[in-house]
Every structure is written in C-alpha cells, then in structure tokens.
C-alpha cells in the first residue's frame, strides 16, 4: 500500500477487483482518492489491481470479505476507518447472478443471490451510515452508489431472481435516499446495460446481437463508461442528485 497525504476523500468499493468494479477503482485512484477495496476470494485479481494501483501511487487497502456475512459488513467499515479515519463515498458494486429457466430453479439456487445483491448493500450502507453522515456534515461528501442493472428496470427473461434483486436495489436506493437525504447523504443507483465484462465476453455474438440492435448506440458499453458515472455520483459535481437511477445502456430502446 502506498500513501497519499492529500487525498480528495475516501471511497469504499465492493467487488473492487473485477469488471466494472475494477474500472471504478482505477477511476477513483486516478482522481487521487483513498481506496478501501473489498474483494471476496479471487486473490489473483486483487494482486493484479494492486500492481496497477502501485504504479499510480494510489493510497489503498485491500479487504478480503464475504459480505453475505453481516459481521463482515461491520468489519469492512471498521477497517476502512482504521486505515483512513474517514469514509466519504460507498459504492455497493459487488453482485452475482444465477441464470436459467425460473420454473426449474430451486430456492437454494438463488439464496446467495438475494444475500449478495440485495441484503449485503443494505447491511453495508446502514453500517457505514454514521460515517457518511459525518462526512456530509463536514462538507466532504456523503454519497452512496448502488450498482443495479437494466434488468432491474425492464425485467429480463432467464434472469428472474437476478432482476428481482436488482429491482429491489432500486427500491432500496429510494428508501435510503429519503432517509439519509435529510442528513445530507445522497444515495443513487446505476443501471448498466450490456457492458463488456468477463461475464459477457464468453457469450457468442448471436446471443446478444438482438440487444445491441435494440440500442440507440449499437455497441457494448465499456466498464470505464460506467466508472465515469460512479465517480460523478460520488463527487462534488452531483450534489443535487439523490434517489436517482442512471441508465448506462447506450439508449436501450425498451
């Protein structure tokens, strides 16, 4: 870990070492923030991000935690404070999916999805709320970004439990925005569409061409394009945005 004395703030990012989360991490690093980065299990990707952050001279701490465990959420906030003595922005990015025909699924197939996509962000945000409120009162920030999905807005066949949890996350954004907004903390959501991540790179083009064709910008989005919005929502450039959902989907026409 490197140190940076004049950081612009401290951001806590979950699912920070892969896909969209990795891009968000690098975006905040480039902007000179302190980074508390949560990853679940993949040490290789965590090490790889660490190498990039060292090159940038970033100030960061890597926290290995499974946020399905409620105690882990508290622990993550405590570790962030121990390292940086403040928390200004929380980005609930970690998520997982389980796809298939819903009628054939078993409850056990999607139990962890509910915990990971919907309950963990709630537990982590409520654990972080006192620090975010302090940040807002000090005029430093106080912002939460939820990573939802277009599936949470439009629904998606083959992804019933996933879209259900991502829809719930949008409701959670509204609930938390209403409550924490009174204390100066903003809570907003991002709903990415079809973004080039490991999850979609393994698909054959014929499986997603119809999605691209139904977009006003007929190409896949890049993780960095989502990261730009995540940075904007955490920054002082978005101080009157609260309870919003930002579709990063190239103008998906549905």
């Amino acid at each position, binding site marked *: 870990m490197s140190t940076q004395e004049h950081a612009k703030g401290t951001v806590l990012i979950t699912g920070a070492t892969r896909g969209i989360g990795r891009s968000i991490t690098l975006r905040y690093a480039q902007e000179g923030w302190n980074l508390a980065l949560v990853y679940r299990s993949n040490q290789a990707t965590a090490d790889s991000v660490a190498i990039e952050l060292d090159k940038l001279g970033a100030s960061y701490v890597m926290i290995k935690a499974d946020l399905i465990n409620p105690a882990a959420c508290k622990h993550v906030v405590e570790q962030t404070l121990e390292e940086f003595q403040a928390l200004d922005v929380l980005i609930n990015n970690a998520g997982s999916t389980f796809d298939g025909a819903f009628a054939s699924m078993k*409850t056990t197939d999607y139990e962890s999805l509910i915990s990971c996509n919907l309950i963990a962000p709630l537990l982590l945000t409520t654990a972080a*709320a006192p620090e975010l409120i302090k940040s807002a009162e000090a005029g430093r920030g106080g912002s939460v970004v939820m990573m939802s999905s277009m599936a*949470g807005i439009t*629904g998606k066949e083959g992804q019933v439990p996933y879209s259900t949890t991502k*829809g719930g996350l949008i409701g959670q954004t509204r609930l938390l925005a209403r409550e924490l907004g009174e204390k100066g903390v903003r809570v907003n959501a991002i709903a990415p569409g079809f973004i080039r991540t490991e999850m979609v790179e393994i698909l054959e083009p014929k499986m997603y061409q119809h999605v691209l064709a139904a977009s006003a910008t007929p190409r896949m989005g890049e993780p960095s394009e989502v990261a730009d919005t995540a940075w904007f929502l955490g920054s002082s450039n978005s101080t009157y945005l609260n309870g919003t959902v930002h579709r990063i989907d190239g103008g998906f026409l549905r």
Partner: protein
Amino acid sequence: MIIFDKIDHLLSRSIVEACTAAGLECVNAARNGGVQAELEKLQGPGALVIGPPSFCEATALKSKLYGSDDSLALAQAIEAEVRYFLETCRSATQAMMRHGGGQLLSLGIDDVASKIVGLPQSPIVNQMRSSCIKSLAKEYGRLKISYNSVLCHPSKESVDSKLWRSQRDALKVYTMRFTPSTVQEYAEFCRQLLTSNPPLNGGQICLGKGVMETAA
C-alpha cells in the same frame, strides 16, 4: 378460480368482495393450507393474487439507523419477502404451465403517498415485485401466463378523513385538491383486470389521482 395468498389487507378483501359479487369463486389460501395446496386444486387456468406487503421498511430503517436496534430485523424481513414472492411466483408458474395458462397479479401500495399520510412504506418490496413480474412476463408470457402488478395510492378508507384534509398541501405534489379514490374503485379495476383478459403482460399499473413517474 381466483386464489388470494391472504386477505389481511383491505384492498385484497375488497377485491374478493368485488369478484364474489360478480359470481367468481375466490379462495383465501392462508385459511386453506397455503398457496401451493390451492394451486394443486386448479382444474384449468386460474388466477393468483398476491396481497400488498404490510411491513414498514421506513420505520425499520429509522430504528436501525438511529435507534438502539442493532438487530437484523430489516434485512431479515426484506429477505423473507423476496424469498416468499419468488417461491410463490415459481409455484404459480409451475401450476399454470400445467394448466395451459393463468394470471398472477401482485398488489402494492404507493410508498410516497403512504409516507405523506403516515402509512407503512415498502419501496424495496414494491420495486422488487415489479421487476420480478416484468421478467416473468418476458419468460412465460409465451405460455399464456400473464403477470402484472398494481400499485395503488392509499385508499380513502385506509386513513382517517381528518388526516386526508390535514395533508392537503403535501398531497399537492400529486394534484390540486387531491381526493383519494375509494378502495371499491381500486377493487373494481382489479376485478376487471382479472376477468377481461386485457392485452397486457408485465405491466406495472399505477392507480390514483395525479400519479407520478417513479425512478423505474
């Protein structure tokens, strides 16, 4: 046959009354061995109505954030609601697939209007249900199963008339001289939705005066 998962909410009870008055057979699954058991009894395409959530997420969140409550009550309640809804939808879908079609209707109460008049608010569950319904419609609409959700403003009967009057100014965000709809009006709309086979699948229908667009 129209199966109601439970009829503890005024809106659900009123829909039962409206449907029964129209000569339709209604069943309260909560009193008859549960939704799964009632779905097994279907002889052909039927309908399942899932009543509004009653848990107040806003109260639980306040308690968690500012009270001495260090429990997981809010998280556990949300988790239980999501699990219940998914399991109920899956059971209904399986049964309706066997019977060549059917309808599933989810009921909810608008959480912003509820906040204004001091009723329980469930934005997480409302939005969770809507997204689930849309996905199910996309996946199983081809099998002649329709899934829709109805989100109503609080009815005239659900709040004391003095409170409606005292909140007149706050309710201007919806419309000038806000007048709440009666629960019978909502129930009649739902009865028609359940019986007229409209060209609608995956819909989130908002009922009330001066309904605003929400985030998604």
